[in-house]
């Protein structure tokens, strides 16, 4: 990945990504010594040092690098005539076919393909109410791949960001601490080194919370002028989402789920192990790049580098593949299943259960874990799985049924929660983002990946 990075950046540059720049006069002095000879058009791209890095390496586009890459690619996709099937939720995969729920039309759609690339993102949203991820990041692609025979690995490695706003989970960036902000408890005392690595800070905060206290970010001593100049975004977000003016009051925060390192086992050519014609890239895939804890900046690099590898591998595969696709018969069964869910009467509320699952994972399978906590979580999870069957959606419409979509996502969330808790229980050590208070040390007997495969015994690799 690192070797391919300069070419990946060059490709984004050619596509028109609006990278931040440095002056040409600085570009030679300030850049890393690099084994690559770079054209001046690339040397002028600004780089910043990310947490854990020893030099400024990450190219960026203001504060919105991911967004700007995404939209630039999106513009190219429109221009090249790519067809988008918006509002199609992946239901199931089989060799050379994917089944979707067409949310608008309210029907199952089967799409045949010589090759399929999954780029469906992570599953941080299973920690509902405790994550910076969007609502839909419930691991739908992972769940479909798992049900189709793929292997999922490392689900226990979940990265927390130390400072999300307490009630809305909106991210307050590291720069708030970098500029000199303090973390304080209810007594107003500092209790940790604010600039320690993310996982350490997150654990220190969570320990305070477990002891029943609240934790705050104290920025007041920095002064209004400095705050408005250095952290304008953060100031606005705190006022809007938390109703707190950080120039005058303490800002309530908590660690929130940010990234899931685990995912679908793939080869370095992005092929999903065990599934013909299926490829995966990005947060949904696990190419063992991030280990047990991801470094800042690496997720964007991963999607750019392996997105290309997956695309090319899928294209090459499709060219070679000339078998006809099997005749579909699952659409009807999938439709029946969805009809039943829509018509079901029962006493459970989807949104209440979704919150309960999020709270459960956060408390028992989050930043600090233990055998007792994880076992309790397993019991409660089984309870939630039973309650799932009694959910009354209260909306029997097939078209544009948002509750139905959120129900199907919740099913996937429950599956991933189960795999996560199982793996966290098995890993009787602490490593990276996975911390067991009953096994606080890293133990090299566990220097392997925990894998899960449907129907099969969980394996070690």
């Amino acid at each position, binding site marked *: 990945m690192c070797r391919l990075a300069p070419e990946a950046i060059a490709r984004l*540059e050619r596509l*028109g990504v609006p990278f931040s720049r440095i*002056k040409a006069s600085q570009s030679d002095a300030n850049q890393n010594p690099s084994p690559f000879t770079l054209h001046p058009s690339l040397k002028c791209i600004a780089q910043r040092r990310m947490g854990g890095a020893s030099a400024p390496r990450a190219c960026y*586009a203001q504060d919105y690098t991911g*967004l700007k890459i995404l*939209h630039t690619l999106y513009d190219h996709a429109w221009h090249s005539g790519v067809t988008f099937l918006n509002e199609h939720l992946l239901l199931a995969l089989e060799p050379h076919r994917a089944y979707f729920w067409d949310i608008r039309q309210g029907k199952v759609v089967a799409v045949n393909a010589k090759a399929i690339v999954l780029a469906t993102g992570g599953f941080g949203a299973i920690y509902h109410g405790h994550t910076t991820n969007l609502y839909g990041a419930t691991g739908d692609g992972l769940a479909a791949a798992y049900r189709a025979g793929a292997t999922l690995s490392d689900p226990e490695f979940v990265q927390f960001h130390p400072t999300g706003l307490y009630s809305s989970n909106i991210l307050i960036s590291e720069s708030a601490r970098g500029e000199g902000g303090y973390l304080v408890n209810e007594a107003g005392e500092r209790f940790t080194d604010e600039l320690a690595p993310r996982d350490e800070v997150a654990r220190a905060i969570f320990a305070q919370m477990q002891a029943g206290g609240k934790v705050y970010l104290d920025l007041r001593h920095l002064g209004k002028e400095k705050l408005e100049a250095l952290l304008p975004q953060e100031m606005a977000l705190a006022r809007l989402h938390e*109703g707190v003016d950080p120039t005058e009051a303490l800002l309530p925060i908590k660690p929130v789920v940010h990234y899931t390192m685990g995912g679908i086992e793939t080869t370095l050519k992005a092929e999903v192990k065990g599934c013909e014609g299926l490829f995966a890239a990005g947060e949904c895939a696990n190419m063992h790049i991030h280990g047990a804890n991801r470094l800042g900046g690496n997720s964007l690099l991963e999607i750019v580098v392996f997105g290309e590898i997956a695309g090319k591998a899928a294209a090459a595969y499709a060219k070679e593949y000339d078998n006809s696709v099997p005749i579909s018969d699952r659409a009807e069964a999938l439709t029946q299943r969805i009809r039943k869910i829509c018509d079901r009467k029962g006493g459970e509320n989807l*949104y209440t259960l979704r919150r309960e699952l999020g709270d459960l994972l956060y408390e028992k399978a989050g930043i600090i874990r233990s055998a007792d906590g994880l076992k309790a979580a397993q019991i409660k999870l089984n309870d939630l799985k039973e309650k799932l069957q009694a959910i009354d959606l209260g909306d029997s419409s097939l078209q*544009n049924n948002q509750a139905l979509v959120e129900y199907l996502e919740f099913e996937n969330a429950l599956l991933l929660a189960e795999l996560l808790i199982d793996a966290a229980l098995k890993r009787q050590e602490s490593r990276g983002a996975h911390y067991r208070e009953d096994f606080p040390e890293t133990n090299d007997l566990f220097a392997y990946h925990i894998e899960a495969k449907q129907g099969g015994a969980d394996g070690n690799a």
Partner: protein
Amino acid sequence: MVTLKIERNGTIEHFEVSEGQTLLSALYEIKEKYDTTLTFAAGCRASVCGTCAVRVNDKEVLACAHKVCDGDVVAPLRFHPLLRDLKVDKSQALQTLQRSEAVLHHYGEAVLAPKDAHKTERQSDCILCDSCYSACPVLAVDEAFLGPFALTRAYRYAIDPRESDNRSIIDAIQQKGVWDCTLCGECTAVCPKGIDPKSDILQLRTLSAQAGYSDPNFAAQSFGTPDFGGGFGFDPNGGF
């Protein structure tokens, strides 16, 4: 508690929700407590995905960035086919991205300076929330108008020093494009990202003029000549 008045397929329904929260979390409160059929679009909760735009008291806002106020009237975006309640179909509006040729066409190696990056910093913050599209009065009368966000994007690529030939962009924004805008500024007023499509459109007019185009309306009015060919294309008598 505050009362929200939500427009649902033409009728207004009242809901009591807790105060001090964003409109988006209030919509979920309604869904959990009163009515799971209430339909809206949502994603990031943090003003970056652009999914959740609606109209509150006749002004476009992001639901995740609007604090609920007592009596707020909430309605779906205009000029988009309504799917259900507050959820609209954006596919037609997004087609303007294709029609405006808003993309880097012919990459030419260029050494960019910080000031080059600053020039399109704002324009490239666009999250395609469609607020500006819904606010634009021209779209009320002409659904073929390219609309503000596509033109802002076209501008972003047209002035990119890496674009060695922006002719196809400039050509694409003449018909139902830069000259059809009334420069009313409604788009600029509602953009949650502080983007100013109106001034980008003005700049595009200058670029168009430099490329030999002229305002067809102006030409038609001042010289009384018929508006041939729909008012676009290179006009050799266009005042140069």
